[in-house]
């Protein structure tokens, strides 16, 4: 399968390296507002959540766009926004289930994740994530690895139970 961004929320440490790398890569400026990926935290309980584009194959953001500015890119297979066509109506922003589409504070046009198109090493967020909360990989392989991990956990628990008894 094509590589996608895989989010493992349990591993998110809330550092926002993804956020700051994204804005630097795309805009040459470091800012949360300009970033196409977002991190939400509840510091009191140590909880963190990375909210990025989920790379829908049938994206609601494209479906609601009145001008076609937001449409599925035939090569990348995900929604891309053309700022030259975008009229800033915000329908995409409202309809994205993940809150991954934003409005640029200066241009007032919508913008979203473009998988750092053209970056050899792949998306910055996955490249820089220190905890493995975001990885850039084949989702089939990721799910297969998860199944094996769960199997191993079961084996370990069974072995321990046996030893105790």
């Amino acid at each position, binding site marked *: 399968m094509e590589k996608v961004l895989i989010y493992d929320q349990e591993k998110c440490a809330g*550092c926002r390296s993804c956020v700051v790398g994204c804005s630097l890569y795309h805009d040459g400026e470091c800012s*949360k507002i300009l970033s196409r990926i977002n991190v939400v*935290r509840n510091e009191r309980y140590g909880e*963190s959540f990375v909210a990025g584009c989920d790379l829908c194959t049938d994206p609601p953001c494209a479906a609601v766009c009145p001008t076609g500015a937001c449409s599925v890119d035939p090569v990348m297979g995900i929604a891309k926004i053309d700022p030259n066509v975008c009229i800033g109506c915000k329908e995409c922003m409202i309809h994205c289930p993940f809150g991954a589409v934003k409005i640029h504070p200066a241009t007032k046009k919508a913008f979203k994740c473009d998988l750092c198109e053209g970056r050899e090493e792949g998306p910055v967020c996955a490249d820089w994530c220190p905890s493995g909360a975001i990885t850039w990989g084949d989702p089939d392989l990721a799910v297969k690895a998860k199944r094996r991990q769960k199997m191993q956990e079961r084996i370990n628990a069974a072995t321990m139970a046996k030893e105790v008894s």
Partner: protein
Amino acid sequence: MDGWAGQRLRVDLTKGKITKEPLTLEYRKKWIGGRGFNSDVIYNEVPPEMSPFDPRTRVCFGVGPMNGTAAPSTGRVTVTCKSPLTGGFGDSSMGGHWGAEVKYAGYDQIIIQGKAKNPVYIWIDDDKVEIRDASHLWGKFPRDADTMIKEELKDEDIHIMLIGPAGENMVRFACTFNDVWRAAGRTGHGAVIGSKNLKGIATRGSGGVKIARPKEFMEVCNKLRQKFKNDPMKIGLYELGSLCLINFANKDGWLPWKNLQYGGTPLANNMSGETHSQTVLKHREGCYACPICCGRFTEIKEGRWAGEHFGGPEYEHAVPTGPRVGIIEDANDIWHNARLTNDLGMDGIETGAVISSAMEWYQRGLITTKDTGGMELEWGDEDVVDQLIQDIAYRRGFGNVLAEGASRASDKLGLGDDGQYYTIATRGMALPGDDPRGLGFGYGLSFAMGTRGGCDHLRSLCCLELSGALYPGLNTKYLGDERPQKPTTTAGKPYMVYYEENQKAVVDCLNVCCFTTHWSYAVLTQDQLDYFNACTGLDMTLDEFLEVGERVHNLERAYWALLMSGAREDRVPERFTNEPMPQHVDYQTNVGATLPIGEMLPKYYKYRDYEAGTGFPSERKLKQLGLGYVAEDIKPLRKKYMSETEKKKKKYYY
């Protein structure tokens, strides 16, 4: 403007006045930011004779040009004021995300002065700044105040600096937090903030940081982040937190046991990073833009403290109210005590230090239950420690005496020089969890020479003698010699401490995390210069860059000189010179060691160009650093200092 925001915010709580002051390029090149900005303000605006609780005193929150950028670990904030613990120059640094938010709101520094009539908090919403009522927040733990402010301001995404009840009660070592749990621990600025009736500073910043040369900056940041992926310190810190040090500290005999009478305990593994991660670790956490993510979130699952949870602990946070007071059997007690000092808002190091000093006074019969209000200060008694931590925070009974810090408490109790011996402090500030008879002689030297009260591992953080072993050739690169890599040798240590102190000062001015530059050496001095230049658009040379560090260090040293503190106080606790390290752990490596401070100090003075008699920075050095006005301030004090030395004046503690 590139890098910097270009202005600082000044809030006068007496007058309710808010001003924004531009920072010239010349000023920014001279001091860079963070600690540099703060130290300059304290030197110029807080006269040495001013009481730390005088309403006219300043508390500074400094961020730097790198804050909020993609350089590794850019969330830190330096908090500086005249310390109520030592009476001298004091600062501390905290991680978290508030520093980036302050920068995004458009400020390089916040200066607080004056005193509000009633409890207040400050709300910074980009360029809108207001002073709001905090009477409903007074008395609250930072975790509760944080929740309440976010509800009040209807934004869960803001970041807030807060003090706890200990700061409100002006405990002399009360501390400051942001994002609830990230602490700026040392020197007692929480008490100064509390004395101003200030509960905290809530911040929302919607701006960004402009980068002068974005492509170049991206290249440097990317190169460094790739380096971190395989960095041995990163891996250890990410997996296990700073508690990864426990078993090393125990083996090399620098883990404080019973007020540093011993350098370890056979049961140390109970609180190791390995044990922590298998039993109570709930989440790993990272400060802003950090590639390491050493932060912990702990939840106690069993025993009398089951259900308690908190952010942390760090090594330095857990050890003082753990092994230092003789507690190691049940690690949950240690986690609980760390949770307490967090919720109450006190420096974990100083809290544990003052309790362990009191326990040793009790052990040696210097105090009795008459002094303690009936409490029997037995080593390892969790009931006593749990009670005392709270009594200190609320200034109750014997806790009220200890809330003054060990040096003052000793004098209050009339214990004379004997009492002071067991405070394990320099210039009135206690040693952290790092016995230099095992940690390293370089550290030992820097304990004597620290400019925020001695006994401080963070002024040099000369990890070249510690984690340096993980980076073959690094000692040779900077010092020309691999011998200094060994902790318990004096070889090369005077130069090591000189170099690392300057380097660390620059790191503090940049306000990036020293775990990226000193624990891990993934970010070398040259790398810091590269990302600084690319971010700000300047073309500083390496020596100009390091000179800023030397300038800041000397300014702070001069501030101590104004307080008549110099050569006489350049000492380490006599335990380290008088008492050979005893054996307490089978595999301990430093049995018999003492700290040969006398072999290193004179050479270090030469590196620093300090005068032999006074220990003051020389006029020549100060002028070289553009601090001629400081040289003039010190000039009239030399004679007085020397005559005091001749008259064998009592040691200066605070």
